């Protein structure tokens, strides 16, 4: 389906998509619409956000069963390079065993259980336990068993390190600890095709920024704050959209099974904007100034031309910026790609944005503490194909007491996260003192959060009700 746009259909800063793209077809993957996700509100018990029994069950039923992004291929560029991927109390060694071959091992010595590796490493030929010296090569086969004579009848059971399944897509190395899991390709479904159609190959992107924040809330609390954009009106009131209260409220949610995406309403849509957005710009110039954070005591260097909208001006600016990176190839992209075009949420915890938006999130529980989590933020920058790609950014790890603005490489995003993260400890504390005992997720704006909890219920075995919450209620 090819769709072009007209100026009169301009809607907002992000999703008005006319301008210079008359000759570029509207991206077919964005034109694809799925049936509306089932309507209605969803009530979710608060227990799952803080009680240890849920955390323990999540380890068994989600983290030991799901495909999950462990690292980027370029983080382990040479044979023998390895990355330690940790989620909750689980730890895996992800190692490159060939030019395009990867393996993942449970990071625990088969002798006395010591972690085989504490840190990421380079060019390993073997993994030797630093307790008593049992050793396996990077292909998982045992090469040395000091004191082996003293362990009669055990050689067979320790001959190979236990493995997790591995797979790759877009430069991401995935693992799945479940030996009976479906292939990664089946799990992702048509997702890779969408990124091909977007001309947005993550395998060619450069991980320019990687920040790892340690947050005082459950991983689901943090993640859900980024599953919907309805909070922007209250939590980020400086991000004026407009004019009018359309913008995100006009987006649509498409359910692809293990993943959901938010896509802008099509240029040909005649949908009616939904109320509830809350803030609106008073002028087209305000749209630009809020986007780039020019305040009232300074002069904006980006002026909206006569007759243009703020959204058009932003997209023109982004197009010219990206021209400095990939040259005139930027003209092969429709305007809808300039700001992103879509946000994708892959079960259980990966969130790549679309187009040139660069953003990529991941959320994980932190060790055995249901009140803490890890949030990865990456900026996956475009890079010209005719030049060698820079090495990926080292992970900038922030401690529990550090503000995220101490990662200035995030730019304006760090300030925006200051607002998001300010909510999270209070959400975590508020859930624990909730008399109501459940939260309510809306039919439209919070559809992706409902979708995610529907998947959660399925993976946790709660399709017929949250039996852990029911047990608690019976006490």
């Amino acid at each position, binding site marked *: 389906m090819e769709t072009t746009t007209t100026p009169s259909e301009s809607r907002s800063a992000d999703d008005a998509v006319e301008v210079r793209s008359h000759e570029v077809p509207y991206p077919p993957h964005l034109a694809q619409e799925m049936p509306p996700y089932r309507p209605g509100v969803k009530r979710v018990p608060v227990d799952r956000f803080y009680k240890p029994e849920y955390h323990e069950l999540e380890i068994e039923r989600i983290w030991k069963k799901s495909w999950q992004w462990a690292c980027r291929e370029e983080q382990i560029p040479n044979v023998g390079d390895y990355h330690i991927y940790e989620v909750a109390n689980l730890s895996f060694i992800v190692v490159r065993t060939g030019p395009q071959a990867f393996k993942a091992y449970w990071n625990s010595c088969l002798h006395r259980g010591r972690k085989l590796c504490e840190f990421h490493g380079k060019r390993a030929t073997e993994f030797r336990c630093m307790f008593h010296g049992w050793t396996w090569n990077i292909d998982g086969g045992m090469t040395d068993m000091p004191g082996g004579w003293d362990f009669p009848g055990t050689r067979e059971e320790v001959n190979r390190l236990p493995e997790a399944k591995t797979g790759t897509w877009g430069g991401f190395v995935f693992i799945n600890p479940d030996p009976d899991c479906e292939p990664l390709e089946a799990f992702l479904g048509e997702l890779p095709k969408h990124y091909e159609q977007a001309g947005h190959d993550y395998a060619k992107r450069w991980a320019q920024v990687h920040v790892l924040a340690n947050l005082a809330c459950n991983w689901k609390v943090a993640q859900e704050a980024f599953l919907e954009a309805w909070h922007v009106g209250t939590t980020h009131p400086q991000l004026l959209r407009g004019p009018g209260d359309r913008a995100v409220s006009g987006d649509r949610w498409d359910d692809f099974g293990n993943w959901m995406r938010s896509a802008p309403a099509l240029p040909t849509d005649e949908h009616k904007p939904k109320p509830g957005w809350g803030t609106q710009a008073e002028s087209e110039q305000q749209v630009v100034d809020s986007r780039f954070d020019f305040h009232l005591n300074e002069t904006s260097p980006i002026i909206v031309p006569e007759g243009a909208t703020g959204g058009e001006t932003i997209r023109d600016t982004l197009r010219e910026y990206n021209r400095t990176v990939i040259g005139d190839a930027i003209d092969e992209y429709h305007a809808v790609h300039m700001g992103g075009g879509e946000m994708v949420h892959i079960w259980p915890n990966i969130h790549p944005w679309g187009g040139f938006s660069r953003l990529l999130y991941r959320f994980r529980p932190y060790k055995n503490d249901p009140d803490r989590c890890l949030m990865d933020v990456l900026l996956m920058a475009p890079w010209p194909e005719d030049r060698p790609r820079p090495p990926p950014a080292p992970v900038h790890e922030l401690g529990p007491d550090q503000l995220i603005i101490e990662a200035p490489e995030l*730019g304006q995003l760090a300030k925006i996260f200051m607002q998001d993260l300010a909510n999270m400890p209070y959400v975590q504390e508020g859930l624990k003192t909730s008399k109501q005992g459940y939260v309510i997720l809306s039919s439209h704006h919070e559809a992706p959060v409902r979708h995610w909890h529907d998947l959660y219920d399925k993976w946790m075995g709660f399709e017929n009700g949250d039996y852990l919450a029911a047990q608690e209620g019976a006490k």
Partner: protein
Amino acid sequence: MSVSDRKAFKPYYGLHPNDRPLRKYRHVAMKQTFEELGDGLVKVTADDGRTGVFQWRGPHVEGELTQANVHMLVWTGGPDLPDDCRFHWIETPIDVDRPSGWPEEYEKRLPYVIGRSA
């Protein structure tokens, strides 16, 4: 603009390297104006003329206006970015001619991120 003209684009960040004005924003829905006073304090003025001063984390300090949106207080009076890091994330600085990918000045500014010792 051709590939050879890549550097013709002028970035907007770094406009006030030595003398950045105090921040001032308007919350158009609440009809209030937020002004940074320094030292983490923010003055809020409602359209009806009432004013209040708040700490950037939210507590009221003085004035007839006693309630304000804490997220606007954070934005206006909370810790701020260095001026050369005010970029929008879609425009994080890139220099395709440098092996690090970052413009030279950022290699000094953000050595940890670029992989050099701080």
